[in-house]
């Protein structure tokens, strides 16, 4: 068993590093950037979760553990395929590998996936001392058990649902392609809707005064920035068939137009959320929203270029364009 573990574990870890390593890298980058942006708070940002974990280990509460486990399961949900071994997992099923060893291999990969959580647990150990250790080990085991259950739980298939939707032909392929990664793309779109909802909420808290419209513009810029990542995802989807399509009597612009249309359609919902909310509570702002519709469509189209041509700087260039757009739009509104 040990021999097989030693043969399989490095392959599984390496596969995850290649398939999901980018996600991990982003988390560490995010942590670093967040720490640098919030001046003087880098230590706090690292220590705050550790302090919460220490408290949970020393005096566990049902609600606290439930939140931790839900977060842990949601964290692995979009990475299920990469963690389970990707395409090779089906072939591995045909090999005589026992269930305990399969779970051990999954848990080994999870320890890498949870590297940030392990760091927080170690910091929590430093805060709580020896007394907190049994509780922290218990939390780690609970998290691993919950994540293992999530890895092997049968989930409903959103691809089938999307396939049955009466979508126009121009959008059908792209929407189905996005539905192939339901959790990642669904999560990303929920962020977009969340940004719009937050914008509407803040504007309401401001009683739709002079700050409300700039907040809505900021929300649109941010949602546009998040939506722009769909251009990259759609390009990846088209990559395998691009050479084949080149042999067909189809204009190369067809895919570009479809992608633009897809992102514009996705952008309609957050725009309408804000426009309808403002229209209901601040009808005077509707004229501004009509103009914003065109400007927002222009922003979504403009973001395609940096996302696809900007290389490693693509996201940063897109953020700059979105920020510049928001600044200009706010200046126009205030004028």
């Amino acid at each position, binding site marked *: 068993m040990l*021999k*097989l573990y030693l*043969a*399989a574990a490095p*392959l599984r870890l*390496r*596969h995850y590093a*290649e398939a999901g390593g980018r996600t991990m890298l982003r988390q560490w980058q995010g942590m670093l950037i967040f720490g640098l942006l919030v001046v003087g708070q880098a230590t706090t940002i690292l220590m705050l979760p550790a302090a919460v974990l220490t408290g949970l280990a020393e005096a566990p509460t049902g609600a606290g553990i439930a939140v931790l486990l839900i977060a842990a399961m949601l964290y692995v949900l979009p990475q299920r395929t990469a963690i389970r071994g*990707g*395409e*090779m997992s*089906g*072939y591995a*099923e*045909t*090999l*005589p*590998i*026992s269930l305990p060893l399969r779970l051990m291999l999954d848990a080994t990969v999870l320890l890498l996936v949870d590297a940030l959580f392990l760091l927080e647990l170690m910091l929590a150990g430093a805060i709580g001392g020896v007394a907190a250790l049994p509780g922290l080990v218990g939390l780690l085991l609970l998290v691993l058990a919950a994540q293992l259950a999530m890895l092997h739980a049968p989930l409903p*298939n959103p*691809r*089938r649902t999307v396939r049955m939707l009466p979508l126009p032909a121009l959008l059908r392929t792209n929407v189905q392609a996005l539905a192939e990664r339901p959790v990642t793309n669904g999560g990303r779109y929920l962020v977009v809707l969340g940004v719009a909802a937050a914008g509407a909420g803040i504007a309401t808290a401001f009683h739709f005064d002079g700050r409300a419209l700039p907040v809505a513009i900021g929300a649109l810029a941010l949602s546009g920035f998040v939506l722009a990542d769909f251009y990259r995802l759609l390009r990846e989807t088209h990559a395998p068939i691009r050479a084949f399509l080149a042999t067909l009597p189809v204009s190369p612009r067809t895919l570009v137009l479809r992608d633009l249309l897809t992102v514009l359609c996705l952008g309609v919902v957050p725009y309408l959320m804000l426009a309808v909310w403002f229209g209901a509570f601040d009808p005077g702002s509707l004229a501004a929203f009509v103009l914003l519709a065109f400007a927002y469509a222009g922003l979504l189209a403009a973001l395609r270029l940096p996302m696809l041509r900007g290389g490693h700087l693509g996201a940063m260039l897109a953020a700059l364009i979105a920020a510049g757009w928001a600044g200009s739009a706010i200046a126009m509104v205030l004028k």
Partner: protein
Amino acid sequence: MTLLIVRDLAAAYDGRTVFSDIDLDLDPGAYALTGGNGTGKSTLLRLLGGAQRPAAGTVSIDGHDLVRDPIEARLRLGYVPDESPAYPFMSGAELLHLVQTAKRAGDDPVVERLIADFSLAPQLGARFDAISLGTQKKLLLAAGWIGHPRVILLDEPSNALDAAARAALVARIRADAAGAVILLASHDAEFVADTGATILPLEIPAAAA
């Protein structure tokens, strides 16, 4: 001596039944599943190999139930998929080592002979994404023979093979068919004829959901 027993096997994708009520009793020999695209040949092999869970039914490999006694059943099984399942960064040697370790197999003259017949030695250290489809297929075929399997499932085994490798594979199948069930799915009628495989009178009903 019946090595592969299948009862009431059914497969479904997203609630749509691909086939159902498959029964098989196979003694040692070479057998070929033939049929048009989409009839479920590859799906049937995946089910028999344990790569996919059946919607219903049981599979027994050399007397061991694939679900109730999975380790013993898989120790007696060799499965060669149509498409390479290996990680792109993995080398052929690593794949063979992994399968050999999983099957608790030592050095095997049959596998070494296949590696020699397929001229694989120079390619063993190369990454999977750096070798041709034919070489990938040869490596998977060699892995399929590791551990003296009593049931060998081959999905489109002749795809992408050069003439020499194809001839070697035919000879291997002919040689081992006396002691093992070799069940292959293929569109290559000439290859099937060369192996002397029995065409299975298997009509997979494309049942409606």
